[in-house]
């Protein structure tokens, strides 16, 4: 299978693996821009910190512009997310969905082992698929994906209410009674935003660390698609089954 083939480039001192295809990379940077704009405009909507100096509202449209931008980038973010969900199934081996076997004991064993591995500051490389994501990371991304979905549902539900009975309201209006009113919908929308900010803090600092101090090519892989491992590195199968020394 073409899509599952592993591309490997060996240079003098490291091995590079082609992990992220161009679709993944482009959609990742679209996400970065969209989430950035969404957080900024969302903050403004929540706590308007800038006020036009006019005496009358004629011509000034700061809040309206922020809301329009928020909506525009929400649509971009959502379409991008939907495409990415499809790519879970269609993308290359590293992206693929079939690694997400929550019903298997091995999945949880691996996640638990990896958590201990992180906490004890080891950063072990093991199976080949972890060039993409290890199980713990997969779990995190799925949670982030779900959070983003709830964010989209609550967002579009609020947006739809500007035109009750209209397109967005018909599709997403049911979300509001589900949370017992729009006040709660807003509160949840905001909490998830903070959740996403928390994820971003961790995500960004880690990829920088792994790029600079561990030379795994984490950050640059989102530009070049290539991840780095030391020369002569061999994948290890199921390291959590071996006794730790």
């Amino acid at each position, binding site marked *: 299978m073409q899509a599952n083939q592993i591309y490997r480039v060996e240079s003098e001192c490291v091995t590079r693996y082609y992990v992220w295809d161009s679709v993944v990379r482009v959609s990742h940077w679209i996400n970065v821009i969209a989430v950035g704009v969404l957080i900024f405009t969302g903050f403004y909507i*929540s*706590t*308007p910190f*800038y*006020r*036009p100096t*006019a*005496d009358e*509202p004629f011509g*000034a*449209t*700061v*809040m*309206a512009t*922020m809301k329009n931008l928020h909506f525009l980038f929400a649509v971009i973010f959502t379409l991008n997310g939907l495409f990415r969900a499809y790519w879970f199934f269609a993308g290359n081996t590293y992206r693929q969905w079939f690694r997400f076997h929550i019903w298997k004991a091995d999945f949880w064993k691996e996640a638990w082992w990896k958590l201990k591995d*992180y*906490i004890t*500051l080891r*950063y072990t490389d093991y199976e080949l698929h972890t060039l993409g994501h290890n199980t713990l990371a997969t779990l995190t991304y799925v949670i982030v994906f779900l959070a983003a979905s709830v964010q989209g549902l609550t967002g579009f539900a609020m947006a739809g*209410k*500007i035109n*009750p*009975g209209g397109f967005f309201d018909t599709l997403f*209006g*049911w979300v*509001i*009674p589900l949370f*017992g*009113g*729009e*006040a*709660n*919908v*807003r*509160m949840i929308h*905001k*909490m998830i*935003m*903070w*959740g996403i*900010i*928390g*994820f971003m*803090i*961790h995500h960004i*600092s*880690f990829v920088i*660390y792994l790029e600079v*101090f561990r030379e795994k090519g984490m950050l640059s892989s989102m530009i070049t698609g290539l991840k780095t491992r030391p020369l002569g590195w061999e994948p290890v199968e199921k390291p959590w089954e071996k006794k730790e020394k």
Partner: protein
Amino acid sequence: MQVQETFYEEVRRKGISRRDFLRFCLLTTAYLGLESTMFSKVVRALESKPRPPIYWLNFAACTCCTESLIRSSHPLISDVILSMISLDYMETIQVAAGHQAEEIVWEGMKKNFGNYILAVEGSVPTKDNGVYCTVGGMTALEYIKKASRGAKAIISVGSCSSFGCVTTAHPNPTGCKPIYKIITDKPVVNIPGCPPIAEVIVGTIVHLITFDTLPELDALKRPKVFYGQRIHDKCYRRAFFDAGMFVEKFDDEGARKGWCLYKVGCRGPVTYNACSVVKWNEGTSFPIQSGHPCLGCSEPDYWDNRPLYQHVADVPLPGFATADEIGKGFAIGVAVATGAHLVASIVKKATQKVKEEKKEQKEE
């Protein structure tokens, strides 16, 4: 058997002119959002259909809904309302009292079994078998169950009986519940508001009489015509909202100039009601027009969406903190944990390197 009077006969007997009656019909047709061609249908229905008896029941509530109704300064509306309900049963203003009053209710309900309308004000305590509210020797719980048996429809008037208001607020010591959670086998319409607008209550009743059906309801059982839009989307201060011009504190310059009240906690953007359209007291004004933010009084559990004067409610976790406080706490927590982890990783690697170098030196 005594023939039921029509609504028209009744208001005429009360001394209301035909002209006023027609004005009332026109107003109500407009409030209900019906086409003007429906005007004649409303008139004909009120002239010819026997007026269904309406029993107004008071349970755990503050009676502000009754106040809203009988103090509605619109002479027409208040007269009309009184002729609609007072005759049958309404504790606050009825003449009869005690056993006599109770007899009238149960007699009437028996006679009109299947035809009468219940208007319920207040929620129903359910804890300890509902002993926290008793009417005529019965708990409110027994009362509503018995009274609803022959009811054609139940109108939950006000936030208490619609969603729960002060009476169901956390921690809800008496286990109060809104009506639709207790009576599930009858059509229930919610008219939330603390209090609801008189015109909205009347409009719903007129719809029921005219078309023999409840008006179209939304997912929370509210009539769509009155609760279909947010206060915010019909608010006359919306231009200031869109511009980004906000009152920062009460009595500042923006407040004097009538800017948007969002930053002093306006809940207009999350509140579904007709205040900014129908307004209050003969269409004189409504809270936002008099410079006060909307408190969201017609939203489910609005006392628990606390605190007031803050447009996003606090997170209902123990201790109640704002979403921003919790969010910031979370983000800082993540930042500190990540930072500590990474610094530890860097230090570990550096010391390992030093050790390895020393080893190499020794071996040499």
